[in-house]
């Protein structure tokens, strides 16, 4: 319908235009960069060589597939990101349910309380975690005390994959809570009451009513956690120790120390394709459920 199409362009036009200018074009620059040669002093080599020919090469892509460590690192980052997403979901779900089920006058406050810590600076929060996980503090002492009872060696919580996961979960939690809450809040309690009347037990009410209805929210939250967590570098940088690095750190390294921008672009493109690809697959997997219900 003509009016329908007009509506689509009228409403969709501005964000589309903005994103094309400030996202698509820079991305295109990067895509071309991945096929260029590294500049002699860092950055990129000129696009058009002195001879007038286009100076493009796929050498950087070849390098990526030539060595196993990059794929290995992708696998490790994938695992960390999935774990973070799962933990965020586990912690956020009951929290969001609580807020959605609370009296109206408390909901705003409770939600704001979730977001509030994240208006303080990221670095300072990570530093706070470095203190909390430090060897002199309560948490480490308790854990090592327990381990000592069993005769095991004391562990350092700091500078380890454990620290990376804890901080990753912490940093991404509100991005799971908010979409989940936005969805759960809409649920009609009458459905649950009906289920209860039909004799469903609490876990059945959850599994057959609440969970399927909440899937769009779960999916939105999972996407908002998984995708950034996959490529992050700041957290592993600060608390990861020698074992905790992720693919984001290597990408940063390419742009800074190694000054190999084409290779950094290649890694970034692979990261983006992997993250979006997996999300698309998950979206397809989630959809049939909704229709069946």
């Amino acid at each position, binding site marked *: 319908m003509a009016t329908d199409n007009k509506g689509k362009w009228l409403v969709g036009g501005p964000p*589309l235009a903005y994103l094309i200018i400030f996202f698509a074009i820079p991305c295109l620059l990067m895509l071309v960069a991945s096929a260029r040669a590294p500049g002699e002093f860092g950055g990129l080599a000129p696009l058009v060589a002195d001879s007038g020919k286009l100076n493009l090469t796929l050498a950087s892509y070849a390098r990526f597939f030539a060595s196993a460590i990059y794929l290995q690192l992708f696998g490790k980052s994938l695992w960390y990101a999935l774990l973070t997403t799962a933990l965020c979901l586990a912690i956020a779900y009951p929290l969001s349910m*609580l807020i959605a089920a609370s009296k109206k006058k408390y909901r705003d406050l409770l939600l704001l309380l979730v977001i509030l810590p994240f208006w303080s600076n990221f670095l300072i929060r990570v530093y706070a975690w470095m203190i909390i996980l430090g060897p002199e503090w309560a948490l480490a002492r308790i854990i090592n005390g327990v381990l000592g009872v069993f005769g095991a060696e004391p562990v350092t919580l700091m500078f380890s994959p454990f620290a990376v996961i804890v901080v990753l979960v912490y940093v991404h939690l509100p991005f799971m809570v908010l979409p989940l809450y936005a969805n759960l809040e809409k649920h009609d309690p009458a459905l649950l009451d009906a289920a209860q009347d039909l004799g469903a037990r609490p876990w059945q009410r959850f599994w057959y009513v609440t969970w399927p209805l909440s899937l769009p929210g779960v999916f939105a939250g999972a996407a908002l956690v998984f995708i950034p967590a996959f490529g992050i570098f700041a957290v592993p940088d600060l608390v990861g120790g020698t074992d905790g690095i992720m693919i984001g750190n290597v990408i940063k390294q390419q742009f800074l120390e190694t000054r190999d921008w084409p290779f950094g672009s290649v890694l970034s493109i692979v990261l983006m394709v992997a993250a979006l690809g997996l999300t698309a697959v998950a979206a397809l997997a989630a959809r049939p459920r909704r229709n069946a219900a």
Partner: protein
Amino acid sequence: MNRRIPAWMWASAAAAYLFLYAPLLVVVVFSFNDSKLNAQWVGFTTAWYVKLFHNEEMLLAARNSLVIALLTAMASTVLGTMAGFVMHRYKTRVLPVLVLAPIAIPEILMGVALLMFFVMINMTLGLVSITLAHIAFCIGYVAIVVRARLAGMDESLVEAARDCGATPLAAFRYITLPLIMPGVIAGALMAFTLSIDDFVITFFTAGASASTLPLQIYSMVKIAVTPEVNAISTLLLLLTLLLITVATKIAPGLLRLNR
């Protein structure tokens, strides 16, 4: 809508809040620590707050961060809601990709790409370039949340309104928008949070003279993140709280995150 909340839900929610606030408590408490380091408690002092008020660079950076975050939240909420609506209502192929990709792309790539782009179009780098960059990656977050909210909405209400003769715009304004408002506000909050804390993209698009709080703090990272940083974090927190309180007094329905 009072539902009996089971004990396990209370307990796990309380644990979640504890998890969320433990580092924050450390930040606030250590802002009064009588030691240059953020490592051990030595004694109580308010000297850092005093020092902070004389630290012009830090205060300017904090103000820049707030201004940028407010602008970003407003612009990306509007654009993101529009995008989320279109993504839900129509079958588009290009928009969803453009909307989701900024979230997936590594920040460092986006930062460098945007810097190259700004230089290419000869734009002076500063607060404006930072804001434009922030809006670009915040739109996606808002759009996702709004779309999730729309997915749970009852379409028949809109159809009923149309049947009664409402134009699409009126149907959106009076039916859809109020129903998705919690999603919109949630998206705005996320955009604000993302912008005020962003480091990587800001780093590359800030240019020679603009400074934001994350950049300022990062520049102190090497030697010691003195409690001055804790102090400004605490103050920023209080300021934001104040902003919200004032906002709810002026516009009581604004934060009706529930229907």
